[in-house]
């Protein structure tokens, strides 16, 4: 009972802190910096969720941007087309609350849609391994992108504009917090240990009675769900979507975060997500040399520390 109260106090403290920081960031800080900080939060969600698939379960997925795109377009379609219909039904709650509830609902819708796609992609993983799996996920990511590009009601090649700006510091870090909490708790649960066992040796895992294929599909579905949430937040932060934001390069960007942070380290993913979001911005002074430096730094970092920044270690706070 005491522990329960302690946890409630901790969570309400974190929520209060996020709310306070939200006020600071929206009112006091330069919008450019706020935007970068918000993008870091979204990248944390994406990197931690991909880490669940690639780092903890050991399945090599390079189609994460596809799941992100589904979440982004799914939730944006709900808020753009459903605003008048659904909001009118929420009249019994105060307006400010209604929009928030509506926004969370649309995010969850996007997340579930992405999870469904994750389930569909997860099933071939029962047959494919290693690089073949990688290329299949890459293919799925591209297929999703081309399909979205040909959907007229979400703008197609023109891009999808006019998305309400619902996402802010509070919601982004709220979901980042939930993602990190959920994944780190999962990894310590029995199911999580099962995922780690599948990564280490699938045959050995099967021989002690774990259902490797079921665990793999679970990891794909859960990872895709959070990627979808991240995409939804991205859509409602930028307010304009184009399929060019969800190419193969975006997937690569997320993988680089996971590998650079250390496969299977949540702390590492968070640090690398922050570092790799800030780095291109910090290199803006270098103008056209920017991406060249970025590429060079990537090569040098990998050669100097191939196991990633954190290897597979965690900060104490993430392993209670």
């Amino acid at each position: 009972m005491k522990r329960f109260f302690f946890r409630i106090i901790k969570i309400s403290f974190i929520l209060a802190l996020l709310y306070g920081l939200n006020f600071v960031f929206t009112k006091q800080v330069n919008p450019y910096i706020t935007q970068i900080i918000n993008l870091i939060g979204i990248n944390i969600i994406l990197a931690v969720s991909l880490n669940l698939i690639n780092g903890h379960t050991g399945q090599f997925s390079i189609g994460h941007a596809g799941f992100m795109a589904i979440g982004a377009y799914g939730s944006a379609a709900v808020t753009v087309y459903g605003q008048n219909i659904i909001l009118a039904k929420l009249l019994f709650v105060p307006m400010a609350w209604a929009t928030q509830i509506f926004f969370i609902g649309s995010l969850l819708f996007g997340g579930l849609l992405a999870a469904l796609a994750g389930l569909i992609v997860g099933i071939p993983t029962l047959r494919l391994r290693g690089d073949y799996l990688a290329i299949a996920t890459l293919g799925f990511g591209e297929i999703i992108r081309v399909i979205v590009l040909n959907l007229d009601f979400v703008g197609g090649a023109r891009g999808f504009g006019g998305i309400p700006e619902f996402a802010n510091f509070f919601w982004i870090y709220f979901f980042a917090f939930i993602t990190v909490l959920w994944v780190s708790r999962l990894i310590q649960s029995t199911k999580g240990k099962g995922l780690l066992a599948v990564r280490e040796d699938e045959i050995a895992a099967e021989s002690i009675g774990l259902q490797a294929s079921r665990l793999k599909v679970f990891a794909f579905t859960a990872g895709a769900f959070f990627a979808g949430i991240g995409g939804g937040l991205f859509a409602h932060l930028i307010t304009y979507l184009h399929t060019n934001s969800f190419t193969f390069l975006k997937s690569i960007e997320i993988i680089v975060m996971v590998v650079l942070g250390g496969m299977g380290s949540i702390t590492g993913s968070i640090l690398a997500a922050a570092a790799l979001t800030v780095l291109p911005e910090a290199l803006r002074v270098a103008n056209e040399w920017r991406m060249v430096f970025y590429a060079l730094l990537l090569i040098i970092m990998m050669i100097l520390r191939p196991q990633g920044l954190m290897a597979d270690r965690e900060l104490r706070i993430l392993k209670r």
Partner: protein
Amino acid sequence: MTEFLQQLVNGLAWGSIYALIALGYTMVYGVLRLINFAHGDVYMIGAMTGYYAAHSFHPSSGGLGLAVILGTSMVVCALLGALIERVAYKPLREAPRLAALITAIGVSLFLQFGGQLLFGADPKFFPQLIENRPLIQWKGVVITNIQVLIIAISLGLMIALRFIVMNTKTGKAMRAVSFSHTASQFVGINVGAVIRSTFLIGSALAGAAGVLVGLSNPKIEPLMGILPGLKAFVAAVLGGIGNIPGALLGGYLMGLAETFVTAYLSSTYRDALAFVILILILLIKPAGLLGKVVKEKV
């Protein structure tokens, strides 16, 4: 029927280019188990080298000029490939495979954006060394001399590659290394040297593909390697990665599939359909068309 045959010819020419790039992917994968993401950009460097070399020739120099350009491009790319291997991949030989993959992505980005700095981001137009004219006309099907040239040069290079891999000492060593690094070392094979020659040969093929693509689609730019590189990789996986005849088959299938989809369906779905075919084939044959299914031993 005419339309079908015409598309078949176009697809074969386009597939030759994919096959040449896919060979490099598959050879490197065979000896290192590494997806060399920078390979598509080596192909871009091949096209760019060809562009600058071609400017030193008079347009009328024709076949001889083309041979010299092809040679220059192949040598430059071979050296570049060996340099990339030495600087970026060799230090990571013992590291986890994903670390090497990220380095490969780093090299790829470096070549793309370094290329933008060096050559400028705007597209360039490959000089027309050989006039594009119909060579064979049969019942409305037109085969141009450039198409014939592309298919002939690619086939020539593939036969040369086959000779190297099957009939020379280096080739034998390559096959041994792709079987097992440790066992090769035991029998006295210099694994480092074999990996280097694999990169030399694979990159030279990509360089040749760059020049050939310059002949048929003259517009070249620093980011041109991304998509063909990706698709050539898909082609290599399709045929069974690490398998040389598989890469050829995959490359031609990819070229044909793309041409037919563009001709009969829609060009916007072209990129997606390539991947749909890939996934379907992988679902039926998970090790690729010609790949061997390796039984796992516990």
